[in-house]
């Protein structure tokens, strides 16, 4: 089997009645999913050629999976967009990747604004119905319309499967290109080390447009398991009760997820004996929190993992049995993945010395869409330069020591200070602005903006935040806004963001 699509179709043939995805009142079997995938393929076949990009503006749902794999099965490349973004950013990404077709949730809050923002002559917005009840699969199929059945084209393993937009150091869109082989190899390895089986029932609160969430989707469906979607963690006690009542066997979270569960629920009051494992990725989790999680979940194996979108998702994991001895480590490279820690000249550094973590393997991306320059900087001789600083201990275990570039990590989301600065610079009355990360107990970092107002400008915190809310995803709105007479600078005039925190 050379693609994830083939793996899912195979699962549908062998155990079609088995549940694939549950979302609120709806449960889609593997047969439902495979059927909806081919309906998507039929619906778009006349509109796309091999390699064309098709953007998805769909929240986590069985319909997302049907659209994503349906696009892949048609030989096109899926571009899952962040549903939290506003129309302006979405339109820029759609234009950047040259998608001429967007499969969009008709009920998305930005739907009308996006239609307005896009060039209707060039881009078709196909509204789809996302219903979370028992007839969701039928309603989704109906919204696709009636189309002649098509045969699945042959899809090369090395061809482009998807583009995932991620935050770069500049405000420019940065689209990570992943091949079918990238997705399948990473999904298989993850399914293997987590021991995922068809009997597993995993809960996923992570968005699928984000590489960690996408890896949960891919690895569980490739293994024939059942994914239960959780829309949000606003009510952690409700989530833990679901883990218990539904007999969930696996759970994926980021550090903020576990901070919430540990801080706002009584995990020990629930029977979580069936929860076989939990996984953590998406940034470093403080060591005391790892220990608290392990103590609170005595029946579960805790997997600490590391990766990045440019490596499809995963680069390393720490075997749970070694959690105590190697506390703070992100473990060893995945099978088939080589990792080296290098100095700025490109030489491998000795044990315990910090350098840049570089990786080679079947999970390394094809490059950045339409950005050969950046691709050449990041992937050299087949080696991915992650930008993460790390060291190894005497036994080869990896420890992450920080990042080389100035990014803010809010929860598990990377946020570019420049993107926010660019938005704030468009607000009348702002003369200068600098954005930085500040420590935050729950999210690791929160965003802080320091603004130098124009003389006589009537700016206040609320109007600044309202402007951000109109143009940025909610998690990118600065938590703290301050006004200052000037910004701290180096002698060469460069703003010193770190001095703002």
């Amino acid at each position: 089997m050379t693609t994830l699509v083939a793996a899912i179709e195979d699962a549908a043939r062998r155990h079609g009645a088995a549940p694939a995805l549950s979302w609120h009142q709806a449960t889609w079997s593997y047969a439902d999913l495979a059927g909806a995938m081919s309906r998507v393929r039929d619906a778009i076949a006349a509109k796309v050629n091999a390699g064309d990009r098709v953007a998805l503006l769909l929240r986590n749902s069985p319909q997302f999976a049907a659209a994503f794999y349906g696009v892949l099965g048609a030989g096109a490349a899926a571009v899952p967009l962040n549903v939290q973004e506003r129309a302006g950013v979405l339109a820029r990404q759609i234009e950047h990747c040259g998608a001429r077709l967007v499969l969009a949730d008709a009920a998305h809050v930005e739907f009308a604004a996006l239609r307005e923002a896009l060039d209707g002559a060039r881009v078709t917005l196909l509204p789809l119905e996302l219903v979370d009840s028992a007839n969701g699969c039928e309603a989704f199929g109906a919204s696709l319309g009636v189309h002649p059945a098509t045969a699945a084209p042959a899809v090369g393993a090395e061809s482009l499967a998807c583009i995932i937009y991620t935050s770069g150091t500049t405000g420019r869109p940065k689209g990570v290109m992943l091949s079918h082989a990238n997705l399948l190899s990473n999904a298989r390895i993850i399914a293997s080390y987590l021991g995922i089986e068809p009997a597993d029932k995993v809960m996923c609160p992570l968005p699928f447009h984000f590489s960690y969430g996408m890896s949960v989707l891919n690895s569980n469906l490739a293994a024939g398991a059942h994914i239960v979607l959780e829309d949000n963690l606003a009510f952690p006690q409700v989530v833990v009760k679901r883990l218990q009542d539904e007999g969930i066997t696996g759970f994926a979270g980021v550090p903020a997820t576990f901070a919430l569960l540990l801080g706002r629920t009584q995990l020990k009051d629930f029977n979580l004996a069936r929860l076989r494992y939990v996984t953590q990725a998406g940034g470093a989790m403080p060591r005391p929190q790892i220990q608290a999680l392990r103590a609170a979940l005595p029946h579960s194996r805790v997997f600490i993992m590391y990766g990045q979108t440019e490596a499809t998702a995963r680069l390393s994991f720490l075997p749970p049995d070694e959690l105590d001895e190697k506390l703070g480590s992100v473990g060893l490279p995945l099978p088939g993945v080589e990792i080296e820690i290098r100095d700025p000249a490109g030489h491998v550094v000795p044990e315990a010395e910090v350098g840049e973590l570089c990786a080679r393997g079947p999970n390394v991306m094809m490059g950045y869409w339409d950005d050969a320059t950046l691709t050449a900087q990041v992937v050299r001789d087949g080696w991915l330069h992650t930008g993460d600083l790390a060291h190894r201990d005497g036994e080869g275990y990896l420890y992450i020591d920080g990042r080389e570039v100035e990014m803010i990590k809010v929860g598990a989301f990377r946020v570019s200070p420049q993107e926010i600065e660019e938005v704030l610079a468009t607000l009348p009355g702002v003369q200068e602005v600098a954005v930085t990360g500040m420590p935050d107990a729950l999210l690791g970092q929160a965003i802080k903006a320091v603004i130098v107002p124009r003389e006589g400008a009537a700016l206040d915190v609320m109007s600044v935040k309202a402007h951000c809310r109109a143009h940025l995803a909610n998690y990118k709105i600065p938590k703290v806004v301050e006004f200052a007479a000037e910004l701290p600078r180096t002698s060469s005039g460069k703003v010193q963001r770190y001095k703002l925190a």
Partner: protein
Amino acid sequence: MSDALRDQVRDFILENYLFTSDTSALGLDDSLLGRGIVDSTGMLEIIFFIEEQLGVKVKDEEMIPDNLDGVNKIVNFVSSKRQAA
């Protein structure tokens, strides 16, 4: 039900999540999550507000949509907790 309490809760959400004082921006029965006004972090901040500003302790098991996902729900929850106290 106290109008002052209702205004206090609504103003807090308007000022901190919608960044406006226009009361028409938020219906009293609107779902804060459904409308994408707050996420899980925002909900924690609302709980902090209820505990610190309104003086009502929110137990872990009381963190459910029926108590917290909307202005009227929060007002009803806080009022009943105050009466029980």
